[in-house]
């Protein structure tokens, strides 16, 4: 097996994730792009499990599991925030979030 294939895949996916985070305005789409990045990292971890076993033991898979769990938690909280924001402002565009105090937007 050529180790470079999964690594390159992971790198490209990470790049796509970065692109998505910067490009998208819709908060949920931003979250999706974040998921892509997290998965790219997972792929690196799992591949490292196979390719650099000597240095790593079998910790890559364990870390990947942890990352998945963290991602689940992140999505749960993130979506709760997005939905709450949508309920307040009826919008999910990240660049419309007013960071300064707004006197009653509605």
């Amino acid at each position, binding site marked *: 097996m050529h180790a*470079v294939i999964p690594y390159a895949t992971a790198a490209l996916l990470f*790049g796509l994730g970065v692109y998505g985070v910067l490009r998208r305005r819709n908060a949920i789409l931003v979250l999706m792009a974040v*998921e*892509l990045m997290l998965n790219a990292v*997972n792929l690196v971890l799992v591949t490292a*499990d196979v390719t650099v076993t000597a240095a790593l033991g079998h910790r890559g898979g364990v870390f990947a599991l942890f990352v998945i769990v963290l991602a689940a938690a992140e999505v749960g909280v993130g979506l709760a925030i997005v939905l709450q924001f949508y309920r307040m402002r009826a919008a999910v565009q990240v660049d419309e979030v007013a960071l300064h105090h707004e006197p009653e937007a509605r």
Partner: protein
Amino acid sequence: MTVADALLLALGAVAVGSGALVVTSTHLVRAGLYLVVSLGAMAGLYLVLGAELVAWVQVLVYVGAVVVLLLFAVMLTRAPIGPSADLDRPAWPALVVGGGVGLGLAALFIDAFRWTIVALPVPGTTERMGAEIFGTWVLPFEVLSILLLSALVGAIVLSRPDIGAPKEGGA
């Protein structure tokens, strides 16, 4: 070029291709569905790489729960059928940064590994991983469960309808 290589290439292509569609599609829900495909292909990659447990956890948590939550949220907010015009910001900065990061990392990895050929692990990594989690990593595991619990509580608190609702509308 072995069978494993071919599988990795094919699945990687699927993952990257649908990943690209996730970040470029103008259809909100379709972006989520492409994410399913991408994550599924990645589960396939994990399987080829011998990490069964991670693969099935990926399917269970990501495809079964995370993406569903995302789709759910998309449908609860605003999901027209057909393309939406206002999804994207100007592409240039994102393209430069994203492309730079992706290609740069890829170049780094390719340079590091070249044509190294690695033997695939024997099946049955699940047992090793279990031993690993409940041996060396048991404390982080417990901390993680507490984190999950707090995330759960946080999500519930955040999505309580009586917080932040307009005063006159009630809950």
